[in-house]
């Protein structure tokens, strides 16, 4: 009986905190989008992934080899640390790009006269998967300093492709002709 009491008290506290959190102000990442009455459509597409060419230089192994023979160990360590910080900021930027695109997809769903449960559940699941995988990658970067250039380039290209395809879709809407949708099947 005591255990059921603690259970209901804890449940009530948890639910109340959830209600307050749900009713509270939006997340800081969303505030800049909501500040404007109509956020600029450009701000909803991916931005950071366009800077990958500059990142490619930062990830170059040739630079590491060149500097390894010319810099003292201490300075080389500082350089590597700085490179890791830049990479981490770029990965954070990619996550922001994803967040923008996800926000746009959710707003499109909200303003649509009909939405499909299957697609929404699929996007929710894939979004959760992305968050978990992204955080593990970020953790590995911080702890191991690993930076697989090829995969990072592919990741960036994917975000850039998604952004440009969505941009094209929105432009087609304005022009009055929609591109054909891609069929998907959901299997978590």
């Amino acid at each position, binding site marked *: *009986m*005591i255990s059921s*009491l603690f259970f*209901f*008290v804890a*449940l*009530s*506290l948890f*639910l*109340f905190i*959830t*209600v*307050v959190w*749900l*009713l509270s102000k939006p997340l800081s990442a969303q505030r800049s989008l*909501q500040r404007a009455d109509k956020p600029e459509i450009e701000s909803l597409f991916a931005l950071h992934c366009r800077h990958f060419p500059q990142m490619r230089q930062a990830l170059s192994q040739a630079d590491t080899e060149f500097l390894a023979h010319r810099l003292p160990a201490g300075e080389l360590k500082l350089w590597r640390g700085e490179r890791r910080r830049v990479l981490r900021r770029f990965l954070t930027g990619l996550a922001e790009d*994803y967040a923008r*695109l996800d*926000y746009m*997809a*959710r707003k*499109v*769903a*909200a*303003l*649509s*006269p*009909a*939405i*499909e*449960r299957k*697609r929404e559940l699929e*996007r929710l699941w*894939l979004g959760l*998967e*992305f968050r978990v*995988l*992204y955080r593990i*990658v970020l953790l*590995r970067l911080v702890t191991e300093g690993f930076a697989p250039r090829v*995969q*990072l380039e*592919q*990741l960036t290209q*994917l*975000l850039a*492709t*998604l952004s440009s*395809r969505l941009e094209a*879709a*929105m432009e*087609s*809407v304005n022009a009055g002709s*929609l*591109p054909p*949708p*891609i*069929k*998907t099947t*959901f299997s978590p």
Partner: protein
Amino acid sequence: MLETWVCILAFRRGLFRRLPIFTIYLALVLLVEVLRWVPTLLVGLNSPATFWTYWGTQAILLLARGAVIAELCYHVLNSYPGVWRLCRGFLFLLAVILVMGAAVAAHASSSKIAYLILAAERGLEITIVGILISALAFCRHYDLHVETPITGLALGLAFYSLVQVTNNSIHSQWLGGFRPWWDFIRIGSFEAAVLIWIIALWKPLPAPSRAPELLEPGVYTVVSSEMNVRLRELNARLEEMLR
């Protein structure tokens, strides 16, 4: 006193035009307060008539609060027909599951009528909060705007329901000894909820927001299919990075 004030405020602010069921609920609270005094004055506080009048009217108020929650969900989500169609089935199913859970929990509790009623009321209050939280979660996920007065009304309803859950849980543990505190917390928490509603209705209600301009039906299909395909590829790349 506070109940009268919030009822007058609700009519002055024209809340009955936007949330008629909530306005009726406030009037019902006042009516029930008067009705409960009748058997108390005629027959006495500890009589069966007083007991059943109290719990009978409490059941009516509980059902009315359930209807208020349904009205709030409709008011907030109806302007977005796609989201409303998606979530109303889910909310209805959740309500059915929680009510059945409340019935099972009440049945499993002691055969004493007091425990049965406390358990049933606790389960139904959890249902009310569960539906409210689910509707607000949909609003949060789709970034739907909820007017400030409505958030205040929702907060008051949630606060009262959750205090009852806690209160009934403690009271069913220590029935006799806790009774004075149970009464005090019950009345105090409702007064606090009414105070939250008064604060929410203090200023004039904002002008009703225009229904949002909806997109063409095909836009969602194109955007969502593109998004899901690319997301799947993104996750595959991330998994490759980790191998």
